[in-house]
């Protein structure tokens, strides 16, 4: 029982991080119909910028001697930084290709991804050494349920993720910007005809998606403080799993990305806990294969006929 609850909590925490990243993939796909491969690098930079911001602020210790608002400060700072980065990536790399075939954009995305990973390792930028994220959130056990000690950091990771997802829901379904995003995702040309500045809406989609990935990067670094160097393959793997989450949930579908993320996290951690910890990646990709075989449109996606 203890093991079950512990796995459930960890799976939910990891899953909610996958969900945050998956939302960025799915939003961009929903509007531009291409996979933004550079998205996992924005997530990676979210983790790294968290470390750098904490360092600049002088919050370097592992002893929780930092102000209570340190986490809030860092998360907002990295969301702004990565949101800006997402804006620049779209403006500089993707917008010039707006009328090019989709394969060109896809290849460009891979190029942006490689550029971010490898230029990030330059000695005067982030460097080639892994770093340790300072402890900004209390790590001691708050209380215990059935033998499982619940740490504040775990609750905060889950709480912040869900709060951000609720915020996104509100943006998409409750604001004029969200209405414009949904209209553009259905028909770009008609949306423009209605007076929607399509390019600006696409920019905002990248800003919002990148900010969510940045928050996920911060939360990931908080939960797992060992930050690997920018070009380390774990980042790509994490991004890939988040992408799988978006596909499993139904690419282009927001709630699908959220549900898919949680599902991937739970499948991964339950598999690792009860079957074999060495095969944790296998469970995720097995789930992907099963979904693609039996419900290729994703769990919450609608079957569509590819337009030609």
């Amino acid at each position, binding site marked *: 029982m203890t093991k079950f609850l512990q796995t459930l909590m960890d799976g939910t925490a990891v899953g909610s991080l996958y969900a945050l990243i998956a939302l960025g993939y799915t939003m961009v796909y929903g509007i531009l119909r291409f996979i933004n491969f550079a998205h996992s690098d924005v997530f990676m930079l979210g983790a790294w910028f968290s470390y750098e911001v904490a360092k600049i602020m002088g919050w370097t210790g592992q002893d929780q001697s930092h102000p209570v608002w340190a986490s809030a400060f860092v998360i907002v700072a990295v969301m702004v930084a990565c949101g800006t980065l997402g804006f620049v990536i779209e403006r500089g790399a993707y917008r010039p290709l707006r009328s090019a075939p989709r394969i060109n954009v896809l290849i460009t995305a891979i190029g942006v991804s490689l550029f971010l990973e490898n230029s990030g390792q330059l000695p005067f930028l982030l460097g080639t050494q892994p770093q340790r994220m300072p402890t900004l959130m209390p790590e001691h056990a708050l209380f215990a349920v059935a033998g499982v000690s619940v740490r504040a950091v775990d609750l905060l990771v889950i709480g912040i993720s869900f709060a951000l997802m609720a915020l996104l829901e509100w943006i998409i379904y409750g604001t*004029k910007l969200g*209405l*414009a995003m*949904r*209209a553009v*995702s*259905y*028909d770009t*040309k*008609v*949306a*423009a*005809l*209605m*007076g*929607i*500045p*399509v390019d600006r809406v696409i920019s905002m989609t990248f800003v919002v998606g990148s900010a969510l990935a940045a928050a996920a990067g911060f939360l990931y670094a908080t939960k797992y403080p060992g930050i690997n160097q920018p070009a380390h393959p774990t980042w790509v793997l994490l991004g890939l799993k988040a992408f799988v989450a978006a596909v499993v949930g139904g690419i282009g579908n927001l709630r699908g990305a959220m549900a898919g993320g949680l599902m991937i996290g739970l499948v991964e951690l339950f598999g690792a806990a009860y079957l074999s910890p060495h095969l944790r990646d296998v469970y995720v990709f097995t789930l992907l294969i099963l979904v693609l075989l039996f419900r290729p449109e994703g769990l919450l996606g609608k079957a569509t006929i590819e337009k030609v």
Partner: protein
Amino acid sequence: MLRLNDLHVHYGAVHALQGVELEVNQGEIVTLIGSNGAGKSTTLRAISGMLRPSRGTIDFEGKPIAGLAPHVVVGLGIAHSPEGRGVFANLTVEENLQVGAYTRSDKAGIAEDMKKVYGLFPRLEERRRQLAGTLSGGEQQMLAMGRALLARPRLLLLDEPSLGLAPQIVKVIFQIIRDINALGTTILLVEQNAHKALEVANRGYVIEVGKIVLADDAKVLAASDEVRKAYLGG
């Protein structure tokens, strides 16, 4: 109000519009008729900024608007209800109407126009919370027209509003076109159903392979031999 002068549009190597001259005066219903591929929709797309003319001018209320982005043109007072309706199937009826009002920020005015549109199309009010994709073809056409009206346009461009609709619905749609015009909106109507179009319009233009070949009062056109033979089935 609107004047097209020597308007040329190219699609790659295809010379789709070859010097179109057309004028719409305040308060009129003007129709542009012609066969498939003659350049009717292309003309509307050039006006609303979806296509950039390669030559010629488009003046709206005295200002040149050729080549402006579509969202700028909407802001100037021209709304375009596109061919094939183009309703957002993933949004509700009400949200579609809100998208139509995207360029406006006067909440009270939008609410008022929303009421007006529901007055013109009671069917839409009944279905306001429904996804637009679940509407029938006629209802989608009503939605497309209502959505365009929410931009509070002074000039409304309607592209093939009767396309694919049952005769009873076509009758309703054309009655509504009259009503919209009576409420003070000038209309440029593109139609394949020349008979119906000439019935509601004040004036008409006939377009053939990218050129205006006839222009006259709608009644005169409807009675002319040329038009009868080519577009009214003898």
